[in-house]
């Protein structure tokens, strides 16, 4: 979705403002939202791509005027509603008015450490041979799905070179919409900065991780 999350190349946001000795959390509720998001993610009712899709679906004005953990809160709220785990009134009041819905699992305190150390690897057996090899010149496709994708707008329809293969990884585009993991070869593609931005850049190159479905063999040069 061409939402407000896709920020690469915008220019009107002002300078970066690093904060000296910044703490991990600034206010208490940020701690709780972070932990709630991880704990609810561990229930198995949704996956990380669905979480990202929920945050990205916020209206752009709301996304840009929210803090990052406010976005996480809104994303979690949307997922709870979409999966029927809670009603809007329950979330507003904090009081349960309906029976709890069945969930695959609950992350218990004694499981947290092992769960975090294990993580959620997304590499999977490859569905077939890789279509591209290191050194190949490829072109990203012009994709503008209404659903989740991880191909940023600034590098659609651009030529680059494969610089790494990472094996097959879960495809976020399908995983976010409940169509399953559909693992695909994942590549790192290096784009010359001029290919992306013409003269208006101080970068030399930009490397982007791209699933095979994002890539095609470049069009023949115009005659």
């Amino acid at each position, binding site marked *: 979705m061409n939402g407000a999350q896709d920020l690469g190349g915008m220019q009107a946001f002002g300078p970066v403002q690093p904060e000296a000795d910044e703490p991990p959390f600034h206010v*208490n509720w940020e701690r709780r939202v972070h932990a709630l998001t991880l704990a609810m993610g561990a229930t198995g009712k949704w996956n990380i791509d669905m979480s990202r899709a929920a945050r990205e679906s916020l209206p752009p004005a709301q996304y840009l005027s929210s803090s990052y953990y406010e976005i996480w809160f809104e994303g979690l709220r949307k997922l709870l509603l979409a999966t029927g785990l809670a009603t809007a009134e329950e979330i507003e009041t904090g009081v349960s008015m309906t029976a709890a819905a069945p969930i695959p699992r609950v*992350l218990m305190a004694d499981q947290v450490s092992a769960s975090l150390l294990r993580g959620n690897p997304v590499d999977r057996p490859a569905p077939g041979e890789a279509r591209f090899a290191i050194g190949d010149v490829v072109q990203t496709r012009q994709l503008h799905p209404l659903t989740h994708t*991880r191909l940023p707008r600034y590098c659609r329809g651009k030529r680059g070179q494969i610089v790494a293969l990472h094996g097959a990884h879960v495809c976020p585009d399908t995983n976010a919409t409940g169509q399953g993991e559909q693992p695909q070869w994942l590549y790192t593609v290096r784009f010359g900065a001029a290919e992306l931005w013409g003269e208006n850049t101080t970068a030399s190159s930009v490397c982007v991780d791209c699933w095979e479905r994002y890539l095609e063999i470049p069009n023949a040069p115009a005659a």
Partner: protein
Amino acid sequence: MSHDDHHVVGPARHHAGAHDHEGSALSEMDLRVRALESLLTEKGYVDPAALDILIETYEHKVGPHNGARVVARAWSDPAYRQWLLDDATSAIASLGYTGRQGEHMVALENTPAVHNMVVCTLCSCYPWPVLGLPPVWYKSAPYRSRAVIDPRGVLKEFGFELPPDVEVRVWDSTAEVRYLVLPMRPPGTDGMSERALAELVTRDSMIGTGLPKTPDDRKQDAI
């Protein structure tokens, strides 16, 4: 809309350091998050003790000191450095740093000719096991928008300039691969222990938005 304007994703309207909600009356977000946590606990979806362990982990245990150990080891041990560049996931796991948001690691070596800088234009992807949670600026629009088009301009806002002939290579974390920059070992550090070297490694130097400290900087810190 929000009382937390100073941390909004979009253009910051207040100085990033101005956080003042701790100890003041409960904000609207405090109340909303409390209600949500109470609801999810009542429904049996989350274990409150698990939330506390999650918070403890990301507030106190995981942080850039982990990545600093990785970098210091790579500076000290050529075989480890090579392992890190060939298979960062395994090399980093050998020091005990694995799991969530670090399942698939790649190390990017800075050289006199190439400077690497990492961003996530689409959200806030960041290598948690080695760097902890990302700072606000990393998740905010000014950095996410301009890192890919004007990295040298961004680096100036962090207080340093690279020589014009250095290639600036930006890495956009669009997949589940997480990038750790291996900065160049500072001059004047011959014979220093790994522990002492780790003290020179800053968080920003492992994102590519800063340089490691020098032994002279460290002496200044101590004064």
